[in-house]
């Protein structure tokens, strides 16, 4: 049965084929599977025309609570490379790979990044925060890991992979500088905000903004009344100017907090998934730009 995700995959494959008629007819493209949309974007940029990548958790999906379908299993079985984030972000990937019987090597792209303890504002989180891509410097580590994995899987493509990775890394450098410049525009005492789930620790650490989340690192846990109360007190005490909701999270708790404190609700942030092609964040770079613009708009004034 054609699920929507299948249709999207087919459509994007068709689009890619239209864009690159020369390679598509041969069907000789390297099939890669990425666990979620942001990684798929990285693979697409590094792999270019030689690689056909699909994301298991598509745009606007929540990888924390993803449930695999048989089609996903089939895609894995056909793949020659599987790219995951690692750091415990996709708890389901090991089981899924075993079940699909795929022989493709698994690359954990976040492996080379500097781990950041996942501790929410009151210190009862455990393990490393997996949302490493929120720091552009880490995104560059991802890209390098993906480049090496692609070369290992398809040595003939070394030239194009290295060239495309180098071009993309340069773009990421520019993005990093752009974000730093945008943060510098925000007065230091206003560089703090509330988000619905703790996905921005790496962004904080890299760019010097302060985020607090009621929900902890995963979207699955339910906050206690104390958690919500503590955040309300903190907003009042520290005069935090704005609260943000991510696209994948339940916005009701955040809306309640905003109403109770008078903090402004900023534009929705993209944390764990890209938007669809016509949304504001169809690629990683567009996503980081969108988030920075949303933060700047709500915090600067």
């Amino acid at each position, binding site marked *: 049965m054609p*699920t929507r995700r299948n249709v999207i995959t087919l459509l994007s494959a068709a689009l890619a084929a239209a864009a690159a008629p020369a390679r598509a007819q041969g069907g000789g493209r390297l099939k890669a599977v990425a666990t979620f949309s942001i990684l798929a974007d990285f693979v697409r940029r590094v792999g270019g025309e030689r690689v056909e990548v699909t994301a298991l958790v598509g745009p606007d999906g929540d990888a*924390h*609570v993803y449930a695999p379908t048989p089609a996903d299993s089939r895609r894995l079985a056909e793949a020659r490379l599987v790219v995951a984030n690692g750091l415990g972000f996709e708890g389901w990937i090991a089981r899924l790979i075993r079940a699909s019987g795929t022989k493709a090597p698994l690359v954990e792209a976040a492996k080379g990044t500097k781990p950041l303890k996942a501790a929410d504002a009151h210190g009862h989180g455990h393990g490393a925060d997996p949302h490493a891509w929120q720091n552009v410097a880490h995104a560059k580590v991802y890209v390098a890991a993906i480049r090496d994995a692609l070369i290992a899987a398809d040595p003939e493509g070394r030239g194009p992979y290295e060239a495309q990775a180098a071009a993309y890394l340069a773009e990421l450098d520019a993005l990093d500088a752009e974000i730093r410049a945008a943060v510098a525009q925000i007065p230091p005492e206003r560089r703090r905000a509330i988000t619905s789930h703790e996905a921005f620790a790496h962004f904080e650490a890299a760019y010097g903004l302060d985020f607090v989340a009621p929900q902890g690192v995963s979207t699955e846990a339910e906050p*206690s*009344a*104390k958690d919500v109360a503590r955040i309300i007190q903190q907003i009042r005490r520290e005069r935090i100017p704005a609260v943000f909701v991510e696209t994948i999270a*339940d916005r009701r*708790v955040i*809306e309640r907090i905003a109403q109770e404190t008078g903090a402004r609700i900023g534009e929705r942030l993209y944390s764990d998934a890209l938007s669809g092609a016509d949304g504001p964040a169809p690629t990683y770079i567009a996503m980081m730009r969108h988030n920075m613009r949303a933060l700047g708009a709500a915090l600067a004034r």
Partner: protein
Amino acid sequence: MTDLLAPFAEFAFMRRALVGVIALAVAGGPVGVFLMLRRMSLTGDAMAHAILPGAGLGYLVAGLSLPAMTIGGLAAGIVVAVLAGLVARVTALKEDASLAAFYLLSLALGVTLVSLRGSSVDLLHVLFGTVLALDDAALILLAGIATVSLGVLALIYRPLVLDCVDPTFLRSVSRAGTPVHLVFLCLVVLNLVGGFQALGTLLAVGLMMLPAAASRFWSADVTVMIGLSVAIGIVSGVAGLLLSFHAELPAGPAVILAAGALYLASLVLGREGGLLWQAWPGRHLEA
């Protein structure tokens, strides 16, 4: 004491949660008592699953719109309740079997519909709220459902009680049995849909059934049981919210844990067949 209750004074979201659970308890108590008397205590659970396809349909039509999903859930729940009730009354199949059949069908349809949409946003999360985030619309919905439930229960009270204790007699003197039963099932669905807004799937059923079951250990009188189950529901709500605040537990489960604690206490201490009174009947005679 003031420290204990301070969160209600300081935070509007705590007051809203309080109003929400009180509204739920006031209507859920009597509905739960009647469910228990009719030996339909597990119906709430089954109906909770039956509501999913309607919610899924609402989601397919209108995206993540809460009113659309609420209306969808309500419609699906009522269709399942009425069909199951009719099948039980008209054919040889018993109520529990027909309900099981319809709710499973409904659940499978719901899961299929939601999966067709192909989004991996956790629909249950988005659909079923948390008691800490009740906005005006949710509160009005809860209070409205409580009002309607109490009014309707008052209207159908006599035939409903008769239908619980002596359905054969009711059938011999009146034809009200079947319509009253169906109206009552609709009330169950209404309260469950309201409960989802505040507490989430299983927890909504918990605030309906646990106080009712606890009240049975204190009295055999329907009126007393209804009053008691409302009181136990309200106490659980207040205690659960305070527990959630002071002990940092998630709010929905904390409310149900409090209700569960009161149920266990009633089970041991209750005067009507509680364990202690059975173990030492002498004390019963003295009391």
